């Protein structure tokens, strides 16, 4: 880009005292990997691109869904069904065509993780699950890259900068110092189950982008060894210092080879081998045969399902209630988004490994969406 054009695009930040051409040039030379284009990744990408981060990587294996648009403002109706990484690349390319953008429409894994992270200066976490978050953390620790963490729940958010060298402290801190062990999946509600106000990840993702810009340019004081929490309902901020955990408490892969062999899904207790049934397959099957459909949500939870018959066995009554399940039909467990029904299925299979049982993938949300897209006649 010629200097004059550069100056007009970035003029508002270049005139900032202490910013100038030198810091803008640092941004243009910086390389940031954004993992996940969801509620956090959408605003973060837009501000990183607008500010002129020279090279941006976008990794997300998922596709745009209608329920994303409430908070993932980089997407629009025309993008439904398309690859998030590819669409996000197009959008920020339109915003700032001078940048080098790499789209990776794939999952971040232990196979590609080190290679991908090593191509960038820092990683911005826009993931919605613990296994990817621990994977990013460990890859960043191994490669010595800063990791800008963000996460949200309902009206509350968390931001922190991990693994950034601190001149005042010998060792850097990371996510495992804060949470050495991942929680079991059923104890942490995800946004599908618990909900999130769309503007919240907008705020937290934008704060993550601000931290990335501060680290790349060297302005200000990033959230070094500090976690900041934000409560949108009462506008309260709370921050605290992250201190190093004892080595024995935070066990993570010490070599690239150990990283490649580490099973993050298993570590985070995500039972990937449990049989799931898609909304479509469920509709076909329930027309064919009589099933035992079990709602594991708590009593009174919305939406109330009236389109097919089922029994209610709330997860809070498990596992003692398992014995009441009659033994002669195929069983389909469902809940709101398919998380609790997996937990129910795991408990059920532990007790009755030979019984044929499934969890409705994506829960009643996915089933309702399926009815809109291709309804099966009742």
């Amino acid at each position, binding site marked *: 880009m010629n200097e004059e054009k550069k100056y007009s695009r970035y003029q508002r930040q270049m005139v900032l005292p202490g910013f100038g051409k030198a810091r803008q040039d640092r941004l243009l030379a910086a390389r940031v990997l954004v993992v996940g284009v969801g509620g956090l990744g959408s605003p973060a990408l837009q501000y990183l691109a607008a500010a002129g981060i020279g090279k941006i990587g976008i990794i997300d294996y998922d596709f745009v869904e209608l329920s994303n648009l409430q908070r993932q403002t980089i997407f629009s109706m025309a993008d439904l069904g398309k690859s998030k990484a590819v669409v996000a690349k197009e959008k920020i390319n339109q915003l700032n065509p001078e940048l080098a953008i790499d789209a990776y429409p794939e999952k971040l894994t232990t196979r590609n993780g080190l290679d991908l992270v090593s191509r960038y200066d820092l990683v911005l976490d826009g*993931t919605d699950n613990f296994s990817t978050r621990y994977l990013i953390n460990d890859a960043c620790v191994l490669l010595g890259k800063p990791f800008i963490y963000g996460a*949200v729940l309902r009206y509350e958010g968390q931001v922190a900068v991990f693994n950034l060298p601190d001149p005042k402290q010998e060792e850097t801190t990371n996510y495992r110092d804060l949470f050495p062990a991942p929680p079991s999946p059923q104890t942490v509600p995800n946004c599908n189950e618990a909900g999130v106000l769309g503007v919240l990840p907008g705020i937290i993702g934008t704060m993550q982008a601000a931290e990335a810009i501060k680290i790349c340019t060297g302005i200000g004081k990033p959230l070094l060894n500090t976690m900041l929490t934000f409560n949108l309902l009462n506008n309260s901020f709370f921050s605290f210092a992250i201190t190093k955990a004892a080595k024995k408490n935070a066990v993570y892969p010490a070599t690239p080879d150990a990283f490649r062999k580490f099973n993050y899904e298993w570590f985070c207790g995500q039972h990937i081998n449990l049989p799931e049934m898609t909304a479509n397959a469920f509709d076909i099957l329930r027309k064919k045969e009589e099933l035992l459909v079990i709602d594991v949500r708590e009593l009174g939870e919305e939406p109330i399902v009236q389109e097919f018959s089922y029994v209610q066995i709330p997860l809070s009554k498990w596992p003692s209630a398992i014995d009441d399940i009659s033994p002669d039909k195929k069983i389909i467990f469902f809940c709101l988004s398919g998380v609790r029904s997996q937990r129910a299925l795991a408990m059920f299979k532990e007790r009755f490994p030979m019984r044929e049982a499934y969890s409705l993938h994506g829960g009643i949300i996915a089933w309702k969406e399926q009815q809109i897209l291709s309804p099966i006649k009742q």
Partner: protein
Amino acid sequence: MMKINLLAFGQIADITGQANWQLQDIMDTDALIQLLYSQYPALKETEFSLAVNKKLIHSNCVLQQEDTVALLPPFSGG
């Protein structure tokens, strides 16, 4: 009487039913956790970290008058 302040976040505040309250005569964080477990058994199933006076702790910590203990759960959403 020694008084301490408690702050709960996210799913921890759901379980305790309050985000900000006080307790009396708690010697240290181990005693605090035992008391919370007995008052709110669901906490035993829930992962959280503790910060005392805005500093993360990794082992038992003696509490003083007016100390603030924050109960911080991990969030997964993005």
